C-alpha cells in the first residue's frame, strides 16, 4: 500500500521508498533525503518535509519532536541564473566585462 502513497511529488518518492530507506539503515532525515531524493526538487521540501517527517516518525517509532527538519537551502524559490548574475554581490574577476552581463539587457525575469 505504501507504494501508492506519494510523499514527495517533485521527485516521485513514496512511503514505501521511506520504509525501504529506513530498512537499509538510512533513517536520519538527512540520510533519507539523500537516499530517496525527497525534498530535492523544485519545492526543496516546502511541500513534503512535514509529510515525510510524520511518516518517518511512524516508521521508526521515534518521537516526532526529535525529528529535526533538514537544512533548508537557498534560494527560497527556483531563481533564473540571469537574474542572479545581475546581483551586485558578485565578485568581479579581472576579465569580467565592465558593463552588466549581456542577459541584463534582455527582457525581464
Amino acid at each position, binding site marked *: 500500500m505504501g507504494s501508492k502513497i506519494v510523499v514527495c511529488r517533485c521527485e516521485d518518492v513514496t512511503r514505501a521508498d521511506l520504509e525501504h530507506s529506513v530498512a537499509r539503515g538510512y533513517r536520519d532525515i538527512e540520510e533519507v533525503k539523500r537516499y530517496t531524493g525527497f525534498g530535492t526538487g*523544485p519545492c526543496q521540501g516546502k511541500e513534503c518535509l512535514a509529510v515525510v517527517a510524520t511518516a518517518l516518525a511512524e516508521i521508526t517509532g521515534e518521537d516526532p519532536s526529535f525529528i529535526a527538519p533538514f537544512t533548508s*537551502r537557498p534560494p527560497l524559490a527556483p531563481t533564473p541564473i540571469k537574474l542572479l548574475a545581475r*546581483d551586485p554581490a558578485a565578485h568581479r574577476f579581472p576579465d569580467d566585462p565592465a558593463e552588466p552581463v*549581456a542577459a541584463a539587457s534582455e527582457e525581464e525575469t
Partner: protein
Amino acid sequence: MQPGNDSDDDDDAGPDASGEFRVPAALRGGAALPERAEVVIIGAGVVGLSIAYHLAKRGMTDVVVVDRGYLAEGASGRNGGGVRQQWSTEINIRLMQESVALCRRFAVELGVNVWFRQGGYLFLARSAKEIARLEKNIALQNRCGVSTRMLSPQEAGEVVPEIDLTGIVGAAYNPTDGILFPWPFLWGYARQAIALGVKVLTHTPVRALTAQKPGFTVETDRGSIQARRVINACGSWSPSIAKMLGVELPTWPIRHEICSSEPLKPFLRPMVSELSSGLYCSQSMRGEIVGGVTVPGHGSTHAMGSTLEFLATYSRRLVKLMPRLGDVKILRQWAGPYDCSPDGNPILGEPPGVRDFYLACGFVGHGFMMAPIVGKLYGDWLTGGERHEIFDRYTLGRFTDGSAAHHEKEDFNIG
C-alpha cells in the same frame, strides 16, 4: 522496493533474489560498540570507507569506522563528483589514472549504480599564460598515457556548442575524465565493507584519543574501543583528532560553495572549467547543472552557510561562458569544506614519532576522486602488501624535514 525483507540477515549483504542489496546493520543505530579492534578508522567519508573496504577485502575485517554524523554529512556528500586525470604532477596523474579505472569497475564490484559517466573535462583558457600552463600539463599527462589534447577555440566549441567563444584562446580536453554521483559511492563502500565484517558506526563522535602501549583508546559518546591502529580520515576536521595525540597538522578548512539547477535534457557532455575564475560545471545524470566558482578573499573557516556572493559570482561567470543557461533556474546551493594543505597534496602515513596512527587527509577538495586509489593502496600496505611511494612522499614529516621542497607542488586544484 521491498522494504522489510532484510530484517535479520545482516551477515549476508550480497544481492538478494530481488537484486537489492541488504541492510548495513551498523547504520541502524544502537549497534553495540566492540571493546577492541585491529583498526579504528575515524571518519566515514569516502576516504575512510574506501580504506575500510580495501582492508576488509584483503582479509583484515576487524575494522571499525566511526563518524560523528550521518553518512555523507561531510565533504564526501557535498562535492561535485568530478574525477579527472588532468593534474600537474606525474604522481597525481598516475594515481588518478588508477582511480578512474577503479571507478569504471565500481558499480560491478560494489553492486551500486554510481552514475559514473566519462564525458571528459574541458579546461578553458583566456590568456597565453593559461595556455602555457595547460600545455606543460598536457605534455606530462601524455607521457603518462592520458590522452589530453589542446583544442583551438573552434574545436572547444564543437565539444560544447553552448560556449560563447569570445575571449577563449584554447582549451585542454581529455575525453576519459568524468563525473559520478557521490552519495552511492559511500553507500557502496559502506555496504560491502559491512558485508565483509567491518562495523560502520555513524552518530558516534570521538571525544578522546589516547596512546596506550600498545595501541590506542578511542573514547566515543557511545563507549570506548581499544584499537591497535587508528586511521584519521576526518577530512578538514582531521586536525582536531590529530591534536588529541599531540600531532599538529598544517591543514586548514576553506568553505567551498556549490549549487544545482533544475534538471535539463542532457546536452553537456564534459565537465567544463574556466581557469581564470575557477568556474566549473557539469550536468549530472539527473540532468541538473552542478557547479561552483572561486570566490576569493575568504579565510579559513568551518562555517558552511550559503552566500549570495557565491550564487551571484557563479551565475555571472556562467552566463558569460554559456549565455543560453541564463534562463535556467537554480534550485539549491550548499557548501562543503576543502581540506587545504600547504603544497596542495594530501597527508598520508604516520606522523614523525607516532607509530600506528595513520593520516589520510589534506586532499584539497579532491579527496573524493582520489579515495578509490588511496583506499586501495592503504589496504595493500596495512595488510602487509606493497608500500606505495605516496606513503613516503606525502608524509606529514615532509613539511618539517625539508623534503617537501624537493617535490613539486600540485597547482591544479580547482574551485
